[in-house]
């Protein structure tokens, strides 16, 4: 962690301790959420997208201003079939527009405002599995299995302990060739995938939700947080996505830094209002997750809703 980041964290922590949580709604004026609005929006997310649920987390880390059983939101085991970096390359190579437009110095909103919204159309735009070159898959497969501990010389070679009583292999009712993702396993080029646990906490300092990513590799072993950055839109990796301590979980996790969330949400809300859509605070997290999808475009978490953002024609 760089020094400036640490100083900022210390400052932020102090401010959080001495100031009370927001109680007055400033959702439309500033794009921020009060604690009770966060709960309302979270309850709505959980009821519309049941793959999300509230968690109470580690008792010692509970925030007193949040209900004990509603400390943060999480959705587990979300597939991430491609690296965001390689998707962007292919998109450009295919002559498509660059995902982000920084002309007005406001890449985030530009991303969001692009007409290619909506899960299904986005999937159509993305290159199909068959087009993924093996070389690109290789970069995935060969990433250091850092957390796997295989680089630790002290760890005995597991093959030495390979068991002779392979009872499972002699059982005809056990399916032998399943992989985490075996959509269409063909010879050695089996598609296996990373998965993510995506969590949303309430950031009291910025008064917005904050997204955290815990990655798992193709064999469901923890992914080193640095490798998570491969699944972040390259314009955001290391700039707006940083690796920090999760407020409720142990270890370091990648997080979309919330410093501009309020401003971006305010702009989204303004656009909606200019189109005559009256934004409701319980839909905040759907808008928010849709915007976060521009940062982590290949992590297929659920935020769908029959809810019109307004058409792309202005």
């Amino acid at each position, binding site marked *: *962690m760089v020094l400036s980041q640490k100083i900022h964290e210390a400052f932020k922590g102090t401010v959080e301790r001495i100031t009370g949580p927001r109680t007055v709604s400033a959702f439309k004026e500033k794009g921020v959420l009060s604690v009770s609005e966060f709960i309302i929006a979270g309850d709505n997310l959980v009821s519309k*997208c*049941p*793959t*999300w*649920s509230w968690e*109470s987390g580690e008792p010692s880390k509970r925030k007193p201003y949040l209900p004990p*059983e509603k400390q943060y939101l999480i959705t*587990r*085991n*979300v*597939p991430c*079939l491609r690296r965001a970096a390689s998707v962007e390359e292919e998109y450009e190579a295919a002559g498509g527009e660059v995902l982000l437009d920084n002309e007005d110095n406001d890449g985030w909103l530009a991303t969001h405002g692009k007409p290619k919204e909506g899960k299904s159309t986005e999937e159509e735009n993305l290159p199909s599995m068959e087009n993924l070159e093996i070389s690109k898959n290789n970069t995935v*497969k060969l990433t250091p*299995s*850092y*957390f*796997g*501990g*295989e680089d*630790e010389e*002290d*760890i005995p070679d*597991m*093959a030495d*302990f*390979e*068991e002779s*009583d392979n*009872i*499972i292999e002699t*059982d*005809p*009712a*056990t*399916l032998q*060739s*399943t*992989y*985490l*993702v*075996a*959509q269409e*396993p063909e010879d050695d080029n089996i598609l296996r995938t990373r*998965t993510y*646990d995506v969590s949303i906490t309430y950031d009291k300092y910025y008064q917005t939700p904050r997204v955290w990513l815990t990655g*798992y*590799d*193709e*064999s*469901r*072993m*923890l992914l*080193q947080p640095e490798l998570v950055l491969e699944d972040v839109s390259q314009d955001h990796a290391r700039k707006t996505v940083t690796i920090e301590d999760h407020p409720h*979980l*142990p*270890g*370091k996790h990648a997080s979309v830094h919330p410093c501009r969330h309020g401003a971006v949400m305010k702009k989204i809300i303004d656009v909606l209002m200019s189109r005559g859509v009256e934004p409701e605070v319980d839909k905040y997290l759907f808008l928010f997750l849709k915007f976060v999808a521009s940062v982590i475009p290949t992590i297929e978490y*659920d935020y*769908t809703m029959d809810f019109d953002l307004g058409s792309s024609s202005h």
Partner: protein
Amino acid sequence: MADTEQREGSILQFAPFQSAVDEGFWHKLSSLKLNKLGIDDSPIPITGFYAPCSHSKVSNHLTLLAESLPSESGEQSSTAHGNRNRCAIPGILYNTNTIESFHTLDRTSLLKEEAKKIWEDIHSGKAIEDSSVLSRFLLISFADLKKWTFHYWFAFPALVLDPPATLVDLRPASQWFSSEEAESVSAACNAWRNSSSTADVPFFFIDIDPNSHATIRHLKDWVTCQGDNHKLLFGFYDPCHLPNNPGWPLRNFLALICSRWDLTSVQFLCYRENRGFADIGSSLVGEAVIAVPQGWKDRQFIPNAVGWELNRGKLNRGKMVPRCISLAKSMDPNRLAESAA
């Protein structure tokens, strides 16, 4: 997929359960070991969590979280009941004090011991009252707290039907049900999943009346629902996403069905979801024929069991070896100091 496709009359093959351990579990185990257990290596009851498959491309896992372990004050952590994404499954943890004792654990007899518990719960009827015990699991581990490295191995004990069940039919539920039935089954499943009293009950049966109206019922009502022209199917939360195989939990469910109710032909629903809602297109309906194995009426007889998890790591793909994870990066104070500098 063609080579693994199940054909009529073939042996019913189940996709093995897969494990996933949250980093928090290892942190909690370390502090439990340091602050409470010391060298006590007696087995610890733990809780695993799973949910039906909710994405057409990935299976769900049996997941261990920090809350899976008992708290340091002794009582079992209170886990939110009725969380639809967390069906609690009982398990047991053997954490050894040395790497040698980890490797010399008698895995065959440990697996047998857990299989025996499942067998007894089937015969006592406990498995009908609380069906989660059918998916009971076993974890052996060695926590190297000097190197922040954890060696571990899961087993998901399954009672082996001998001869194995044969498959008569298996297809997407959307092709098996009429459209009225499909609609009613979806609605009934969604209601079951949305009610906090049933959301985490992973085994059940579906009762479809002659008017195509479906009701989901608890297993204990099975006997009273016989007769009167209803279609009855056994259902379970299927963590598996594969289009041609049911997931592991069906194995012990079939064992229960054939030893309790003497059925030789069983229709079952592998219940799967999409985005958290019943997905009749990816759910499967199958029909299996079971010959009640020799000795299964006798409670003293304990069937063979399988279920040690294969290591699917990059270097160990598909081998019968334990897994290992190093958390030095997040636990070693020296490394933490370095990365903070």
